[in-house]
């Protein structure tokens, strides 16, 4: 685990939507091959942060972004191809979304958009990603059926498979387990622990226990401010650096 190398560097990031400020000048780093948990109540800016990293914030009308976000030392604003950037980052949001295509095409969508045509390559990618998303066994016999017809939990795993299909270096998950049952959640958490050896993972979650289980370090966001970021041991101990963290973790508010 290379703790020294910084995968993502965020400096003074401020995001506003008209009158409302979603992120107030936060700075944090994400190291390579770590799992960073981000906790905090609703409307803290967690989702906004993820959207800034892969620049899908640009699709929201009225969003203004100030500050610097670097990935592997390169400013994300100045990349040659924003699509390549987005392919470097896998994104999973809370709402499960199955595209109205076959399950196979759902997972093959990203590689195809990147230009991969060979059937054998696509087959391998589809199977690999579905296995990692703990969905392969359930759908391997009906890869032709519509992705939108799966159950909520299955669609969420399909979303995870899609996020992995373009071999991202960074995987961002935003409250991924809301629509999934506990057993499947456990399976995916195991997969995340394996994946961490190869990629960097940011895990936004409301489930304090999950954050503690998985995160090497944890950041606590509240109302657009970064209250503190430290190793998980410290954050979830009785004496984190900030009292607010302690109150949130033990459930005094949120």
């Amino acid at each position, binding site marked *: 685990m290379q703790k020294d190398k910084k995968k993502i560097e965020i400096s003074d990031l401020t995001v506003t939507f008209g009158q409302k400020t979603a992120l107030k000048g936060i700075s944090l780093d994400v190291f390579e091959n770590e799992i960073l948990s981000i906790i905090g109540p609703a409307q803290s800016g967690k989702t906004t942060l993820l959207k800034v990293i892969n620049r899908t914030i640009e699709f929201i009308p009225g969003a203004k972004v100030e500050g610097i976000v670097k990935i592997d030392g390169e400013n994300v604003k100045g990349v040659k*191809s924003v699509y390549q950037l987005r392919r470097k980052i896998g994104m999973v949001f809370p709402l499960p979304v199955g595209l109205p295509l076959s399950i196979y095409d759902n997972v093959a969508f990203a590689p195809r958009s*990147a*230009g*991969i*045509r060979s059937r054998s390559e696509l087959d391998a990618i589809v199977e690999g990603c579905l296995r990692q998303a703990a969905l392969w066994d359930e759908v391997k016999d009906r890869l032709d059926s519509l992705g939108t017809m799966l159950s909520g939990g299955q669609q969420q795993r399909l979303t995870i498979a899609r996020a992995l299909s373009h071999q991202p270096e960074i995987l961002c998950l935003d409250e991924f387990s809301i629509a999934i049952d506990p057993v499947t959640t456990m399976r995916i958490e195991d997969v995340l622990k394996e994946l961490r050896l190869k990629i960097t993972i940011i895990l936004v979650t409301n489930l304090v226990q999950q954050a503690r289980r998985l995160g090497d370090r944890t950041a606590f966001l509240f109302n657009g401010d970064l209250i503190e970021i430290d190793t998980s041991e410290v954050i979830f101990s009785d004496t984190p650096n900030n009292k607010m963290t302690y109150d949130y973790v033990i459930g005094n508010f949120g």
Partner: protein
Amino acid sequence: MTNRYRLEMLTEPIIEGVIRLCGISAIIFVFGIFFFVFREGADFLFSKLDIVEFLTSPEWYPTSVSHKRYGVLALIAGTVSVTVLAMMIAVPFGLGSAIFVSEFCSPKLKEAFKIIIELLAAIPSVVWGFIGLTIMNELIIDGFDAPIGLTVLNGGIILALMSVPIIVSIGEDSLKAVPDSYREAAEALGATRWQLIYRVLLPAAKNGLLAAVLLGIARAIGETMAVLMATGHAVKIPTSPLDSVRTLTATIAAELGEAPVNSDHYQVLFLIGVLLFTITFFVNLTADLIVKGIRQK
């Protein structure tokens, strides 16, 4: 990254450029229409036309050898009379139907009526004109003991039937758009359907209903073939619904074929076109602003 992908990425800006061009095409065409119509009549407008006489004189004698006159007042009266009569019929019936379809109808019947209204809207105007020439003509001659049946009344009834679908469909949309909370409040207080409609729904939907009527009016003003065939050929200000008239639209259609290109007559007809374009533009603009008003609520 394959070559095919590279090709895709290169052509994409071109495709998006074409899309953007198509997007602004509507503006280009609207301006284009105004420009080209105006262009044909511009000469006459700036050199010889007396605008006041044009708009206020009922004497329309474009083909007179000795004394050409280009007053369109009688034509405007023709358009107005037919439109007013049409609206007097179409508005109550159209709104009544809209109310029926939206408030009193069972879902299956509603589907059936909506299809019928759609088909009514699809009937071409020349067919309506034909109906006016044949069926309506006879009905009026028999029914009113009139010398001829091609009159304001004929055109008015035909136009009414043509405008009803717009009024019904937009009217029904506006009634549907009234928030359910209003309905629930009234029903909880024991209101009958009629009270609900009269006291609550109509006032709440009045913007949309007004827009529906305005669009119906715009349709009626702009209609050409049906009135050309159904209202007769008399260029005069009507004094009764059983008079024949000529509308602005019908005049253009009837006389453009015979006016020599670029003659005064020809140019004046184009100017009438400009007049029509302007009138319908403003009526449509008003209706659109009203509709935008409700959608923003």
